[in-house]
């Protein structure tokens, strides 16, 4: 059977449709078993992946004395929320929540506004040096902000702005990748609506603000999500820029809890839970959007 018609091939593909497919049925059965075994392994690993989080929750509901039992046990002798109370009385956690929320929202707003405007200009407008500006902004993707902590700190030190919201928020605003995402997005939507508006006498601001921006909602959502998550979780810069406990964000503040004194296992786990809670809550509410937003940008 050198040449087989599609009909013949599909008939062959069905197991047990002909006597000659008996070996194939055996092969299918083996492949099936293998497939199930692999699926089982991945399910088991997914459960293993959840163990650290489960253990954290488990410890946070124990009394400190119950955390120093050898060997470690999952059993909770007496369920207590005392570790959570201890976190609030021992740290400025409430203040850190407010700082984190304020900084993350401010950075997200400024990033979306400035990057969408720049992306719009690079996509729609014509001017001398446009290719240069685009290349220069794209090259910025390769600058690792972590390698710039020294000059950045120096800059804010000279301006006497260390330990202020300005220092925490502003350096996190320029994200060249966001400009790239907006430019690509505007490239993909038809220009005719803006042209119609321009015929009606609309200026550049109206064309951007009233016509283009409302169409860019998917891009705004993606950029907002990754900017917010990234800013909320950023550790190194806020850790340097906030020199007092009251100016710290959640990651920087929790970072100071890492080195505790005495038996503070339950307290540390309770602060881990409380530090993770806001984003976990956001994640559970908008799981699909967050996953797609992060995947769509490819940013890390």
């Amino acid at each position, binding site marked *: 059977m050198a040449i087989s018609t599609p009909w013949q091939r599909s008939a062959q593909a069905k197991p047990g449709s002909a006597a000659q497919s008996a070996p194939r049925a055996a092969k299918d059965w083996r492949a099936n078993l293998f497939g199930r075994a692999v699926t089982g392994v991945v399910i088991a690993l997914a459960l293993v992946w959840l163990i*650290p989080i489960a253990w954290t929750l488990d410890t946070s509901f124990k009394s400190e004395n119950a955390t*120093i039992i050898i060997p*470690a046990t999952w059993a909770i002798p007496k369920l207590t929320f005392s570790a959570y109370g201890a976190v609030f009385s021992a740290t400025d956690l409430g203040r850190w929540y407010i700082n984190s929320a304020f900084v993350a929202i401010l950075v997200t707003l400024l990033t979306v506004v400035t990057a969408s405007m720049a992306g719009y200009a690079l996509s729609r407008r014509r001017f001398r040096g446009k290719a240069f500006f685009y290349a220069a*902004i794209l090259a910025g993707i390769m600058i690792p902000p972590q390698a710039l*902590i020294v000059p950045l700190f120096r800059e804010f030190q000279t301006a006497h702005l260390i330990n202020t919201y300005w220092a925490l928020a502003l350096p996190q605003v320029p994200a060249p990748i966001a400009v790239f995402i907006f430019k690509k997005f505007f490239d993909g939507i038809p220009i005719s609506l803006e042209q119609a508006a321009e015929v009606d006498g609309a200026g550049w601001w109206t064309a951007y603000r009233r016509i283009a921006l409302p169409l860019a909602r998917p891009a705004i959502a993606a950029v907002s999500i990754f900017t917010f998550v990234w800013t909320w979780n950023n*550790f190194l810069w806020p850790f340097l820029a906030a020199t007092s406990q009251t100016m710290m964000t959640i990651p920087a503040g929790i970072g100071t809890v890492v080195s505790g004194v005495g038996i503070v296992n339950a307290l540390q786990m309770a602060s881990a839970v409380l530090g993770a809670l806001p984003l*976990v809550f956001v994640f559970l509410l908008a799981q699909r959007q967050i996953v797609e937003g992060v995947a769509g940008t*490819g940013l*890390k």
Partner: protein
Amino acid sequence: MTATAISVPKTAAREAKRERRRRGGWGNAGLLGPFLVFYLLFLVGPLIYDIVMSFFNTSLVLPGLGSFAGLANYRELFSDSRFWQAMWHTILFTLVSTPPLVIIPLFFAIVVNRIRHAQWFFRLAFFLPYILPSAVIALIWTWLYEPGYGLISGFFSLLGFGAPGWLSSPNVALYSIVIVTVWWTIGFNFVLYLAGLQDIPRDLYEASALDGAGRWKQTWRLTIPMLGRTITLVTVLQIIASLKIFDQVYLITAGGPNYASRTAIEFIYDTGFTSERVGYAAAASLVLFVVILLVSFAWLALVRKQERGV
């Protein structure tokens, strides 16, 4: 027919007017300006400042650049064994963490994409750790690795093995951090792979099934080749992310024991903010920056080659 004849010059005039508007001076500055201000002040500016400082004996506690040092910072850096030790730890971490972080999520994504049920469960399990802040990760894993009361030590003693000194042994500490990092960040690569898998047309699978290809063959001959570009993307993003490692090491081992896990960024941090030698730290930053830049260029070259090949 006269109607169209008249309308042609009219649209041309309109087009010219529109064209003038799109070139209009204030619009360009107004739209690009705000981003460029942030870009220059907090990205390009600091980079230039960093380059300048690397030629001076700048101190953290004194104003100004300090005395001119010429190439002295670089000369010292290239013969500084502590710097090379930290660079080596960064490179070793990258070499050890990249293969599992490229291969394991690929395996997970291919299997999960097949399962199709309860995808939310796998997204939850594998992606949830990724959105946790590094400080939370540090708390969780310091407690898991705790030698006496920790869960992992408990598990080892249950099996009758002595647990290694996860964080206290100089030969083990960096590898313990690799385990933490794999657990923490695998979800990001997993999600990139899932997105890549969704882009493979379903009829390709149907066609290959009709040709008698089993699942195993499909995975090797169809899925993995079709994911080529995603695998390159994941690999390079992973290498760049690994080269920037700082948070989890600093928070879990503080670079210890005895500097056995100190990485390049922590060297920059220690030199600039603890020893207060900002100029010297600037030179070290620049060397790390050049390494990351070289990897990025290698990636661009690879992508160009792939695109030409396909």
